[in-house]
């Protein structure tokens, strides 16, 4: 074994960073080219809907062999950067883009909702055998560090008949920047003014309490390995791994179990307040059966497509996605769009033009 193979790897994260910096710096380059009768669409963004988008890409490819779609799940932040720099044909983001981000974008970007997801509160307390019930204020106080013991009077009040131990609560949150954290903190900001003032809504906020785990798997690992922990993960991840899930009291006072139908219900009941550009937070939705920590995930596309041929392919793909594509959502633990939002997304897709001409 030579010395050089043992040389420390201190440079690795820096190298990754530098490459990423260069990638951003060189983002003036043009997008992937078309040719030979095959149209290639390049997309990049959120990791959360990646399994669904990969399924869409493969299913759509079977129906339209001349269209090749390449989706890279590099994270919502990267997706926004890339679509702003016009290096991809479509971006994807869990959280809607901010007004500031939209202002920094060359051209009008549309938010097309594709499916919905939810954030599940999971825990590891040996003596809790029935699902835990949580009021929003108690949940916020646990993550603020105000409620420190499992046998706190307010937890007892929501959970009569459950044997809560006299143990310290260990909070686990996501350490990596994540749409999951965004949705969760968005919900807590709505239900707790203290949370809103002290912490706020962000993909990686300054957590007042607890440990950070990397990714859903990191959070789950830390919860499973330590007794008396509480944390949050994506609904799909919680279902696939059969994690215990707390029932959350929604805005109409009902404790709701996280499920695909309860998430779609949250979107449906919020549709009246959904603005025209479809950028909306549906956490703390008022519907009776709505699960309150739910959110859309979006595909981002320019309203004016520079290349008519590629624009047409993108529009057809999006149209197929929100109609035929929705059938694949439930199997992969995503909630399909409610009918009224599909209608509004259709209008968005129909408004996409190239050189002033509609593409559909």
């Amino acid at each position, binding site marked *: *074994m030579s*010395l050089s193979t*043992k*040389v*420390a*790897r*201190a*440079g*690795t*994260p*820096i*190298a*990754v*960073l*530098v490459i*990423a*910096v*260069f990638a951003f*710096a060189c983002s003036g380059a043009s997008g992937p080219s078309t040719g030979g009768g095959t149209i290639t669409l390049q997309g990049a963004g959120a990791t959360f809907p990646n399994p669904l988008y990969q399924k869409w890409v493969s299913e759509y490819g079977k129906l339209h062999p001349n269209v090749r779609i390449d989706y890279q799940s*590099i*994270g*919502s*932040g*990267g997706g*926004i*950067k890339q679509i702003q720099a016009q290096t991809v044909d479509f971006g994807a983001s869990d959280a809607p883009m901010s007004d500031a*981000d939209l202002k920094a974008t060359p051209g009008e970007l549309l938010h097309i909702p594709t499916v919905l997801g939810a954030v599940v509160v999971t825990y590891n307390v040996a003596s809790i055998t029935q699902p835990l019930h949580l009021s929003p204020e108690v949940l916020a106080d646990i993550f603020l560090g105000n409620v420190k013991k499992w046998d706190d009077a307010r937890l007892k009040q929501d959970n009569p008949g459950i044997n809560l131990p006299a143990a*310290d609560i*260990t909070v686990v949150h996501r*350490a*990596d*920047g*994540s*749409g999951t954290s965004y949705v969760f903190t968005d919900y807590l900001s709505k239900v707790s003014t203290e949370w809103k003032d002290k*912490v*706020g*809504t*962000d*993909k*990686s*906020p*300054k*957590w007042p309490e*607890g*440990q*950070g*785990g*990397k990714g859903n798997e*990191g959070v789950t*690992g*830390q919860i499973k*390995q*330590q007794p008396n922990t509480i944390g949050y993960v994506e609904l799909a991840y919680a279902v696939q791994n059969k994690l215990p899930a707390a029932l959350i009291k929604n805005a109409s006072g009902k404790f709701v179990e996280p499920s695909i139908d309860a998430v779609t219900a949250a979107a449906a009941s919020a549709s009246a307040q959904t603005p025209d550009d479809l950028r909306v937070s549906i956490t703390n939705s008022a519907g009776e059966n709505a699960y309150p920590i739910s959110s859309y995930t979006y595909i981002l596309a320019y309203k004016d497509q520079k290349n008519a041929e590629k624009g047409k392919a993108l529009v057809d793909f999006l149209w197929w996605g929100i109609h035929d594509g929705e059938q694949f959502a439930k199997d992969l633990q995503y909630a399909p769009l409610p009918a009224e939002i599909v209608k509004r997304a259709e209008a968005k897709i129909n408004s996409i033009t190239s050189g002033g001409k509609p593409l559909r």
Partner: protein
Amino acid sequence: MDQPIGGRRSPLNVNWKHLLSPTGNTGDAVFRGLLFISALLMVLIVGAMILALAAKSMPSIRQFGFHFLTSSEWNPVKNEFGALPFIYGTIVSSLIALVISVPLSLGIAIFLVEQAPRQLARPVTFLIELLAAIPSVVYGLWGIFVLAPFLRIHVEPPLQHWLGWLPLFKGPITGIGLLTGGIILAIMVTPIISAVVRDVLAAVPGSQREAALALGATKWETTRVVLVNGAPGIAGAVILGLGRAIGETMAVTMVIGNRAHISASLFESSYTIASVIANEFTEATQDLYLSALVELGLILFLVTFVVNAIARVLVWNVTRKMSGVGNA
């Protein structure tokens, strides 16, 4: 360039060739040129990295200045960024790693070179070098599922019971935190340090041992002579290990708790520079946030640079002192 050697050359050609190859051989000239380009490329890459990092961290440097290094506030929501908790976490976790792994590695290497029978030394050496090749994410998973619960149940409670009066061992026992991060790093750098130290000790001439033994030295005294001879190499090995510990990302991220705060307790969550970059870079959208992360990268680069420089000086000093002793 297919002239025969020693044939006619134009004046320009002579100069150029002579510069590349004093012997005047074309093959030598080409070889020398290639080597020079390789070396130059390396220097250029390092230079380009520093330049790119510095350029991209300018917004953050301008906004926070020196305060960036002394502030503990890391809050993307409020656009306030300070690097101190990450610098602290990086240095302390690496120090814990060295405190544990250096004596262990020395022991392993001395055993393999000085004591172990050949039939045992070979497979053990192979296993240790195999450990060095395990991907760090595997160490991380093992850390979460095996090491952290083990520490929580069997190591941290007795530590707190006997040494709880020290601020180092106060606080809640969770199995996740600075201590666990340091221990996982120790396990990761031990194969590297011990493999290099083994090579270093094996390179100490046998005549040294024979001389010591001939003078009536015991096995332990002989080993001391060997260690003194190998000291510069051993120091180099420790620095290699430290370099790896400072830059390690995945495994530490999974067990250190990832919380940007400074606490005297080793049981508390902490955060390292490499971890926060890996965790937050993909989802950072605001320019200042991105710039602060890049500046962290620049700091990591500089820390690594300084550590390596210190190592050079150390090794250099030891070598000089040794040769001085030899001459006296």
